[in-house]
């Protein structure tokens, strides 16, 4: 092929294989969600900043904001959950609604020299007023990861209310709870020891023990039940244990961990959280959880649960076999252009990727099937 110039900053050649994998992943997961009765929707790419306010301070700081011609502050879509929750809060009845969606998420990003990031996610949200959909949503997360065919995935279940409840049970002052929670999340033992220096020794010991309440399901459940006897907290442990058992029953090979030190990654999370990791990636493959959304104007609240799966990351790690596309190069002369174009369409109709090129532009490429339509043939 002709030598290509490097692309401008921010552009990249993704390659047909990755696109093919991403398409396959989106198609198969949406098909799966659809089979559970989810309506496939597309959230807006641009959203009112006010709608995104419930995402929390940290998330708000990472939103890319601008002002539209009417003077409203807008953001590039940063959290499709917020758009959906806002829409649902405007409905007169908050009965059961299930959504599946593909959306692009945009965020400011300060790591190294990169300023912005955007990624495509496929996910679901369930809004409900009766019962709970924890099992169904976790089951779909598991299925989406299975469909992605990624090796060595680990699914983590957590509960963001566990640690605050524990600290309240231990009668830790609320001001101190606010300071201690992020340190437990960061496992920052040196600073934690300093921060809780004035607490009774017995309380300090329990908090230090609680820092280790994460890991393989059986180990964690055994550890907590032997070290604590508070019924409300043990009920949360049992809830996650049962959910783990359910997922194990669906796929005995699934690798599951529990983490009771989990904190809110988004301010609206109120209960169960689900995250999937791969040893090959620093970013989670999938994350989500249960949350309460409260509409400021109407004061109406609703419960929902959902997750998003990072499409590009999963496609990169996926062993899904992309559809094999053959490269065909038709070499022709200006006189035979129309004949060559017709021939190209015949090959495209058969699923090939076809380039039409004129004689003096061509360099050979081993991967390409070459057809020459020249004067002799014409």
């Amino acid at each position: 092929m002709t030598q290509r110039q490097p692309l401008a900053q921010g552009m990249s050649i993704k390659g047909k294989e990755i696109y093919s994998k991403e398409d396959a992943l989106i198609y198969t997961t949406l098909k799966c969600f659809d089979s559970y009765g989810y309506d496939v929707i597309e959230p807006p790419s641009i959203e009112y900043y006010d709608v995104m306010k419930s995402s929390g301070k940290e998330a708000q700081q990472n939103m890319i904001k601008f002002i539209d011609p009417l003077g409203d502050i807008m953001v590039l879509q940063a959290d499709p959950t917020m758009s959906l929750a806002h829409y649902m809060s405007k409905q007169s009845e908050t009965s059961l609604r299930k959504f599946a969606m593909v959306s692009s998420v945009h965020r400011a990003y300060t790591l190294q020299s990169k300023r912005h990031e955007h990624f495509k996610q496929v996910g679901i949200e369930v809004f409900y007023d009766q019962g709970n959909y924890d099992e169904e949503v976790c089951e779909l997360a598991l299925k989406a990861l299975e469909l992605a065919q990624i090796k060595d995935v680990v699914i983590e279940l957590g509960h963001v209310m566990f640690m605050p409840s524990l600290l309240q049970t231990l009668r830790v002052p609320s001001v101190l709870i606010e300071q201690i929670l992020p340190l437990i999340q960061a496992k920052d033992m040196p600073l934690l020891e300093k921060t809780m220096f004035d607490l009774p020794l017995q309380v300090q010991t329990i908090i230090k023990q609680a820092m280790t309440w994460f890991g393989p399901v059986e180990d964690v459940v055994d550890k907590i039940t032997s070290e604590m006897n508070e019924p409300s907290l043990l009920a949360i442990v049992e809830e996650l244990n049962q959910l783990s058992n359910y997922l194990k029953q669906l796929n005995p090979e699934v690798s599951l961990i529990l983490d009771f030190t989990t904190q809110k990654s988004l301010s609206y999370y109120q209960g169960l959280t689900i995250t999937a990791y791969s040893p090959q990636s620093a970013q989670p493959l999938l994350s989500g959880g249960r949350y309460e959304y409260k509409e400021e104007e109407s004061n109406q609240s609703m419960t929902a649960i959902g997750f998003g799966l990072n499409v590009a990351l999963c496609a990169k790690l996926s062993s899904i076999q992309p559809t094999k596309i053959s490269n065909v190069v038709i070499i022709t002369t200006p006189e035979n252009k129309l004949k060559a174009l017709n021939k190209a369409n015949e090959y495209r109709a058969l699923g090939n990727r076809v380039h039409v090129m004129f004689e003096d532009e061509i360099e050979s490429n081993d991967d390409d099937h070459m057809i020459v339509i020249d004067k002799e043939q014409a």
Partner: protein
Amino acid sequence: MITIALAKGRLATKGLERLIQSGITFSEYNEKSRKLIFESDDKQARIVFVKAMDVPTYVSLGIADVGIVGKDVLLESDSVVNELSDLQFGACRLCVCGLKPLPTDRKPIIASKYPRVSERYFNAHGIDVDIIKLEGSVELAPLLQLADGIVDIVESGLTLKENNLNVYTTITTSSARLIVNPRSYKIKLKAIQPIIEAINQGESV
């Protein structure tokens, strides 16, 4: 296999000592070697040597699972890592130093390898300064009038003394910290735990 990021120098030597004392040995390791990666004899771990300022980056991005690094570097890096313990070695102070106290009649210029820590410190104290980032030999800056003062680590104070510099304020104290990648800590817990214990247990040795 668990990857441990170490910064060549005293912190690495101490960290390695603790691993070896706990039975995690690296026969191939030779202090004079230019190799940057050494596998443990049981093939369960490997150490990688990186620049001190890069240890948090390697760990936060999951390239390394575990790292040993000074608190001063951690404060400067802003990386998301789990800081598990204070290893009680490599003690030093992060100080504001200079030939004379910072001027009050104009905006002082500060030279430092720690621009973020410096900015946070001076902002918190309501002092407007210009900060120049340097990569090394920071003590030179006041001597050659590049800056009015420096923010740098002070261990024995000998270098400062030999260059006629004084310590005016201690911003914070620092020592070696054991850090882990949050994701690795969760999903490789069983493999990481013995290494964490090995490095921590040395505290009492």
